[in-house]
């Protein structure tokens, strides 16, 4: 177990290193950052001076080594655009994104799992058909369209909720709804599929034959087995959400990491994009680690030390 953890943490370092090189190359390959940072009516000599101030006049390998040296000291560089430490900017935005992600996750679990379980136990019935169709629609709705639609309905027409911003719990409702409509649909479908699969297996028939109550069969046997893939998908979705939902954050002016990254990409703000990717990448790897740990609890047959 200890060896497994150490392996995974070493793995994390490699992932981050690879990601940082990739971000570096992609940003440089996709255009000269300084020309996107500076207005087109800036004089050429000013552009060159500012390029040197940002260190962008150095060869790319030199820039990368400089970045690594800084990163080892915990300095991810200063955002070109905001002139503030990139790491600080990301950490300022992370709480908003984390709040959105966790509430969405909570909604997804409270809606998706019970509904999936319920229709999984009724696979083939009319109710299963109807709900499956609804969830299919839910996961197919593009979030930018859904977000704007919800704003028009709840903020503009009904005047029940604020359209955008990050001020009060009411501001959380529409972005969370937009995100969780997709994730709940997804989880409902996964739980339904797994539960209906498990319920056809021999051990369930045995349990029922032994006289185990339907509630226990569903809650204990079926659900626990269905949870392996559910937890996997939830973990990945949480990683996704922590990366910031670019579309939802920009539609609702939610000051999170995704919107920050979008701005960073548009202006080729290398340190900012790098910091977002590294922080989010770390979160993603750690969430996967937690998911792996959860498997141990959910399925006692899984042992990591033997598989190396």
């Amino acid at each position, binding site marked *: 177990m200890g060896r497994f953890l150490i392996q995974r943490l070493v793995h994390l370092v490699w992932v981050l290193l690879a990601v940082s090189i990739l971000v570096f190359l992609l940003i440089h390959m*996709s255009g000269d950052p300084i020309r996107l940072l500076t207005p087109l*009516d800036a004089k050429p000599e000013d552009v060159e001076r500012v390029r040197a101030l940002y260190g962008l006049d150095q060869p790319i390998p030199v820039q990368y080594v400089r970045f690594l040296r800084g990163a080892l000291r915990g300095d991810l560089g200063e955002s070109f655009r905001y002139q503030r430490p990139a790491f600080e900017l990301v950490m300022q935005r992370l709480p908003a994104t984390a709040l959105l992600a966790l509430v969405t996750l909570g909604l997804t679990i409270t809606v998706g799992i019970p509904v999936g379980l319920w229709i999984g136990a009724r696979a083939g019935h009319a109710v299963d058909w109807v709900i499956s169709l609804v969830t299919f629609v839910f996961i197919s709705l593009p979030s930018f369209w859904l977000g704007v639609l919800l704003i028009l309905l709840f903020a503009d027409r009904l005047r029940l909720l604020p359209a955008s911003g990050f001020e009060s719990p009411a501001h959380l409702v529409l972005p969370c709804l937009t995100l969780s409509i997709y994730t709940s649909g997804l989880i409902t479908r996964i739980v339904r599929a797994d539960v209906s699969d498990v319920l056809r297996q021999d051990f369930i028939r045995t349990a029922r034959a032994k006289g185990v109550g339907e509630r226990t069969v569903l809650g204990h046997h079926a659900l626990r087995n269905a949870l392996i893939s559910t937890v996997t998908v939830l973990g990945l979705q949480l990683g996704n959400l922590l990366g910031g939902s670019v579309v939802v954050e920009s539609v*609702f002016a939610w000051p999170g990491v995704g919107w920050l990254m979008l701005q960073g990409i548009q202006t080729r703000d290398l340190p900012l994009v790098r910091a977002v990717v590294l922080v989010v990448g770390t979160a993603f790897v750690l969430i996967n680690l937690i998911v792996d740990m959860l*498997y141990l609890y959910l399925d006692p047959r899984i042992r990591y030390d033997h598989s190396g």
Partner: protein
Amino acid sequence: MTRRQRHDDRYTRRDLLQRAAILAGTGVALDLWSLRAHVLAAPGTRPAPIGNLLIVQGVDAESLDPHVTTSGASKGMMWAMYDKLLERSADMKIIPWLATQWRVVGETTWELKLRDNVYFHNGEKFGAEHVRDTIMRFKNPGIRNVYAGQLRPVRDVQIVNPLTVRIHTDGPFALLAEVLSIYCEILPKAITGGEVDPTRRAIGTGPYKFTEWLPGQRMVMDFAERPHFSGQPRVRRLVWRPVSEAATRLVELKTGAAHLITPVDPIQVPELEATKNVDVIAFRQLSSQIVVLNSLKVRQFQDARVRQALNHATDVDTLIRTVMRGAAYRLGSAFGPGIPGYDDALRPYAFEPDRARQLLSEAGFRDGFEVTLFSPEGRYLNDRLASEAIAAMWTRVGVRTRVQVMDWSPFVQGVLGKTHDAFFFQQVGVLLDATVSINFDSERKGAAWQGYHNEEANRLIQDAVKTMDAGRRNDMYKRLNQIVYRESPWVFLWNQQGVYAKQKRVAGWTPHVDGIIRLGDISLS
């Protein structure tokens, strides 16, 4: 374990693809097209400021440092807290601000009289030393100020007395007043002396003082207790919020969560006009929408007749009516009204396809030629649509045109690398000197210069900067505009319409044509 890894890989790839699709779909919507206004009010008795004014713009400020910010949206925010030596009226005339008088006292010297009884928000009394220190900071090569070159000719700032400065320049520098009315916000010693970090805290002499900035969320300013010389402010608190989605901005205004929004998509105008309590304010922007013809890449463009032919082949009125839905004003020459050298005697090229064919034939291209028109998508209003329509019009007279749509970044690289045959472009820049020199001066070969060459144009551009007499300078720019009109290195299209929307209870506000918000006498009734 292996089963788990497979799962993990599969979902990770899918996840990355999904994210890439989201990013691609979002596009480059955050354009830095912003808006503003201002009226110089008479000082005197001031009604107590009331209410919170909520302004929603498409983008946030890039920084709190006024010498580093470049976007119009940021400048509007900065100018509520910081003052410049000179200002612009709504029609872009230079007006007194922290400097009450300015005059040329020699070929290389300007004298500025400064306003008395002006205080920074930290209590410092404004005076000549602040002007000297601020100008020196603006020019400091260590500051990431991309406009530092605008004051490069300034050699030295001499303090004559606490309220008079003389600015000495290397050679005649006629544009000083123009530059000071747009750049160089005046800073307190606390900032120029390094005691306060201007990226964390703003301290100006403006009508509003800095309260907080949560990047991406809101910037808050409260009225400065000491009355401002302009008569401002009339509201207690300003809250600026960035909302990138146009539909969301509109709902914020309709529901009262915003008092003033910008930019407004012309498509939204009918809906807003039908909304009670909302005013729509449209104005003619300064920036010129054009097609730049690259004669470095396409040899046929070296012949002025070919460039004129393309102007005659482009039915701009129809484009404005259809593609732009009327939200544009026809441009007769390189620049529209509000820019020095504008000449309303220059009539737009008439739409005459036959004349275009004849000119092409005279130039020796009876059979036409092939060309690629590059266009960004989503950067300017209806850019792709307009480019496609223009390509069809050119093809009809024999210039077989293919449109290539590009993401903004490679598009800009092509502009700077001068590799596009022709491109759909918006020329911004309030200062004519900077703009014309990067476009038309074949000695400087600035960013947007694409092979155009005319000795007289070069000379006019270079001499105008040194011509201290404003009338003569204006004549020189007028002459330049006439040359550029005749030789048409661009296809002249339109000035886009800028649109603001505000609640009816917002009073006393006029937009500036440069699209930067100056609050002026804005108030809430």
